[in-house]
C-alpha cells in the first residue's frame, strides 16, 4: 500500500489545541497551586510545623481521618454487596438501583448535608428511633462518618462492578467441579480477582472523604477539637484572615489527598495489568 510507505500523515491542529490546553491549565490549575506553594513557603518550616501541630489542628486531622476510615469501612461492605447484587442477580428495580448508585455524585453536597441532618437529627426519621435506643448520630463523629459514607458510596460499587463482570465462569466451574461450595468459591476464586479493584475503590472513597466539606458541616456539630473537620478549620482560619494558617493546613490536606490518590492509581494500574494477564 502506497500510504503505508509514506510518513504517517499528521493531523491538523496540534499547535492551537496544545497551546490552548497548556494556557488554560496554567491559568486555571497551575497558577493557583503555585500561589498555595509560595504562600506556604513564605511561612517557613518552623512556623508551618508549629501551625499544623497545634492542638486544634491535630484534633481536626484526627477527627477527619477517623471518620473517613469509618466511612470507608461502611462503604467497603455496602459497596461490595451492591456491586455483587447488580452483577450477579436479577431482581425488580435493578436498573433503577443501578442509576441511583450515582445519586451521591449528582446531588449537591449541601443538599445531601441538610437531608442527612434532617434524617438523623434527634427528631428525624432515623434519629428519633435511634435516640430511643440511646444512639446519637447527628452532631457527633458518627454523623460525620455517615455524611462521608453517603458522598463516597459510588466509588467502591463502580470500581468493583466491571471487574466482577469480567470474572469468567470457567474458573468458578472448575472450582465447583472439584467440590468447592459457594462461600469457598467466593473467598478463594472471586475475591482475590476483585481485590485490587476493591482496594482501589476504597482508597478513592477514602480520599474523597478526607476532602468532603458540604455534606459534613451540617451534620457535624463543628465543636473545636471534637467534631471539627480539617476542611472546616481551613475555612474558619480564612474567615479570621489568618492566611498563613489556612495555607499551611490546606497544603497539608492537598498533599495528603495527592498521596492517597497516587496510591489508588497505582493499585488500579496493577489491577488492570492483573486482569490483562489472566486471559
Amino acid at each position, binding site marked *: 500500500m502506497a500510504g503505508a510507505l509514506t510518513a504517517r500523515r499528521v493531523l491538523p491542529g496540534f499547535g492551537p*489545541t496544545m497551546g490552548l490546553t497548556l494556557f488554560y491549565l496554567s491559568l486555571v490549575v497551575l497558577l493557583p497551586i503555585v*500561589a498555595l506553594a509560595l*504562600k506556604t513557603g513564605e511561612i517557613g518550616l518552623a512556623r508551618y510545623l508549629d501551625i499544623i501541630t497545634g492542638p486544634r489542628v491535630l484534633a481536626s486531622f484526627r477527627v477527619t481521618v477517623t471518620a473517613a476510615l469509618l466511612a470507608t469501612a461502611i462503604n467497603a461492605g455496602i459497596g461490595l454487596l451492591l456491586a455483587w447484587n447488580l452483577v450477579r442477580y436479577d431482581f425488580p428495580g435493578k436498573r433503577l438501583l443501578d442509576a441511583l448508585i450515582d*445519586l451521591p455524585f449528582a446531588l449537591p453536597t449541601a443538599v445531601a448535608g441538610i437531608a442527612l441532618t434532617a434524617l438523623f437529627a434527634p427528631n428525624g426519621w432515623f434519629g428519633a428511633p435511634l435516640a430511643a435506643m440511646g444512639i446519637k448520630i447527628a452532631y457527633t463523629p458518627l454523623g460525620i462518618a455517615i455524611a462521608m459514607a453517603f458522598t463516597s458510596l459510588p466509588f467502591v460499587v463502580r470500581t468493583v462492578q466491571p471487574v466482577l463482570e469480567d470474572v469468567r465462569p470457567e474458573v468458578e466451574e472448575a472450582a465447583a467441579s472439584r467440590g468447592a461450595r459457594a462461600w469457598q468459591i467466593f473467598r478463594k476464586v*472471586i475475591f482475590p480477582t476483585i481485590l485490587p479493584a476493591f482496594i482501589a475503590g476504597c482508597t478513592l472513597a477514602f480520599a474523597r472523604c478526607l476532602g468532603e466539606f458540604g455534606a459534613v458541616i451540617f451534620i457535624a456539630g463543628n465543636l473545636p477539637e471534637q467534631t471539627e473537620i480539617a476542611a472546616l478549620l481551613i475555612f474558619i482560619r480564612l474567615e479570621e484572615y489568618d492566611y498563613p494558617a489556612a495555607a499551611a493546613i*490546606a497544603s497539608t490536606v492537598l498533599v495528603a489527598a495527592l498521596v492517597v490518590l497516587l496510591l489508588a492509581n497505582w493499585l488500579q494500574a496493577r489491577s488492570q495489568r492483573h486482569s490483562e494477564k489472566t486471559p
Partner: protein
Amino acid sequence: MSAAEDRLPPLRRSSGSVGRIALIVLGIVLALLLLVAPLAVIFAEAFSKGVAYYARNIVQADTLHAIWLTVLTAIVVVPVNIGFGIAAAWAVTKFRFPGKKLLIALIELPFSVSPIVAGVIYILLYGANGLLGPLLADHDIRLMFAVPGIFLVSLFVTSPFVAREIIPLMQSQGSDDEEAATSLGAGFWQTFFRVTLPNIKWALLYGAVLCNARVMGEFGAVSVVSGNVRGETNTLPLHIELLYHDYNAVGAFAAATTLTVLALVTLGIKTLIEAKGGGDPHRPRH
C-alpha cells in the same frame, strides 16, 4: 431446577438459595435507607407546610436571584470547559509527544483537590493578600468575594469533566477516520465537525451534563470565594445554607428541591446516554 441450571457453578445459578434472596433484600433495604430516604426527606420537609408555603419560598426575591446566579455561572463555565475538554482531548489523543502522561495527570488534578482547598488557592492568588492581590488592587479589579471569583473556582473544579469523558473514547477510536478526511483535503474544523464530533457526541454530552450538575451544585469552593452577600453573590447551594442557618429549614429544603430535581434529571440523562452506548457506565465519577 433445570439440568442446565444445575450445571452452573453455585454463585451463578439464578434460582433457589435463601442466601441469594437475603442478599438482594439486604441490598434493597440499604439502598432505600441510604439513597431513597435522603431524597424523600428533602421533599417531605419542603412541602411540610403545604404547597402554597413552598411556592412562596421559591419565588422569594433572594431565592430567585440565587437561582439566576447559579444558572448564569453554568452558562459561563460549562461552554468554556467544553471548549477546553475538546482542545485537550484533540491534543492528547491525536498526536504523540513526550510528557503526555503528565499532561493527563494535570488535566485530572482538580478532581483530587478538596473543594475548600480549591477556594483557598484562589484566595491566595487573587485575594487582597494574595500573590496577584496588589496588582489587581492597582487596577481596581476585584475578583474574590465577588461574582468573577465564583466563575473562576467553578472553572477550576469542573475543568476535567468533559476532557475525562472524551479522552478515553477518542483514544480507543484511533485517528484513521480523521487521517482519511485530512488526506482528502479537510481542514481542522471540517475534520472535527464532520468526522470526530459525530463519533463522540454522546460522551461529549455526558461530560457536559455532569459538568453542569457540578457547577450548579458546587458548595465548598464557591463558599470560600463568594463573600455570601445575600441577593448578590449567593448561589443556590450557598442560599440553602443561609436559609438553613436562619432557622428557615422549610425554605432551605424548598430551595433544595430545585437542585434535587436537577440531580435526578442528570441521572436520567446519564442513564439514557449509557443506553445509547456513550460513556463508560462503570467508571467512578466525582
